[in-house]
């Protein structure tokens, strides 16, 4: 479990995160949602340590991240996997090389064991056969899957995904969502997904944190989101006619059942 308490972060005098608190649960897909520029990426980068907040606490299973020394941070990072918006695969390495990278750097496994583990991770994301290809030779969806395989190679306790569906077609987005959801439950990972994809919100949102203008506005799950009275959240989630219709349909079906 990851807990964030009273996190505040500013850039050039402008406060991006205002006293944000949230809890991200183990074995659940935790979603941070919000409009572009709302501060959700800064929140995620603060939690993983790419940005240092001015105040607040970040607790990884009760271990205060901001009070750790560099050695403790390095150890903690071995428990973290991250999927970046642009996949962030190493261009100079093959698909297999990318997945092998964390294993080579941080384990004392033999080359054979590393190969076995990397191949297992690639099979887990249905990417067997693409081992020898370079990132530039595969599609965006495949790149995301390689990045997921790399992120889970060290059996992380915490998995962070920054807009995993950006640039993907709806069908591939659903596949990535399902993969992240399955991996989270299979390995009992604390998964935090940064997204503004409503399909993801309504599909895998087990714990949703809505960030608006740097404030935590709402917390709930994909069922509760249909009955929320939070105006900003309604405007954000049900912005399109399609989702407005879905909402009306689900609410009316709920009334009929009652």
């Amino acid at each position, binding site marked *: 479990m990851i807990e964030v308490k009273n996190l505040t972060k500013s850039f050039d005098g402008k406060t991006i995160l205002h006293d944000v608190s949230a809890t991200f649960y183990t074995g659940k897909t935790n979603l941070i949602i919000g409009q572009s520029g709302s501060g959700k990426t800064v929140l995620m980068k603060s939690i*993983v*340590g*790419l940005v240092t907040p001015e105040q607040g606490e970040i607790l990884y299973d009760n271990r205060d991240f901001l009070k750790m020394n560099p050695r403790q*941070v*390095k*150890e*903690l*990072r*071995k428990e*973290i996997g*991250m999927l*970046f*918006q*642009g996949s*962030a*695969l*190493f*261009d100079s390495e093959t698909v297999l090389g990318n997945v092998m*990278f*964390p294993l*080579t*750097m*941080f384990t004392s496994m033999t080359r054979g064991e590393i190969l076995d583990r990397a191949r297992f991770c690639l099979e887990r994301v249905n990417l067997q056969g693409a081992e020898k290809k370079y990132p530039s030779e595969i599609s965006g969806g495949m790149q995301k899957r390689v990045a997921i395989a790399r992120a889970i190679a060290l059996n992380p306790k915490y998995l*962070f995904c920054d807009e995993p569906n950006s640039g993907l077609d709806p069908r591939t987005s659903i596949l990535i969502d399902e993969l992240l959801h399955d991996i989270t439950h299979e390995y009992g990972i604390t998964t935090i997904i940064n997204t503004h994809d409503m399909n993801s919100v309504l599909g895998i949102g087990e714990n949703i944190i809505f960030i608006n203008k740097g404030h935590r506005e709402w917390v709930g799950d994909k069922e509760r989101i249909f009955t929320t009275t939070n105006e900003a959240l309604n405007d954000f989630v049900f912005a399109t006619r399609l989702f407005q219709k879905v909402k009306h349909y689900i609410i009316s079906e709920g009334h009929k059942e009652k």
Partner: protein
Amino acid sequence: MFIAKAFSIPDKWKVFSRRTLQEVTKLGVDSIPLVIVISVFIGAVCTIQMKLNTSNPLMPAYSVGLATRDIVLLEFSNSILCLILAGKVGSNIASEIGTMRVTEQIDALEIMGVNSVNYLVLPKIVAFVGFMPVLSVFCIGTSILGGYLVTIFTDLISTARYTYGIQAFFNEWYVWYGLIKSLVFAYIIASVASFFGYYVKGGALQVGKASTNAVVSSSILILLFDVILTKVLLQ
């Protein structure tokens, strides 16, 4: 701070060795053709210029070979060569690391707990500084060969006088002086380019700007240190 992080102990020596060998190939071995082409032509031009501009009958004919050799040893094989390599190698390093920065590959390394500066920069510095003497020696040899070819294909100076001039009044320290300078300049190129690449913010446009800034800054530093090292090592 940047250099301190770069020179910290690598996480895995095996990975560091493999990366250093890759950088030797990319930054060093791949530069040999450029060094050879430039050196042959500059050596030839030096010889022709020396002959055409030293028509004093009191100057012995072999002085053309002697002057060509000393120009190559003292300046061309280190300062001028490194100014040229600042363009090729410096822009390569800055654009590679810069692209890794803007595509979040460096963030990915940091998240994994890898010291990204050490992982990316140290192999480049070690490889380029380590291979620079080889490039310098290639430059010296092929420059003198360029002058030699002039003596074969033109009648400006006889081959015998040129080869005598090449060997006359040889000062071994000039070789060491040139090699020391080339090592310092190689370090400047690799570290300055890495610095500019590592701290890129933005996108492709900024990577291009960082690459240009890296070449300009390392060229100026090379010229500055050329003056300092000449004063220190030759006086």
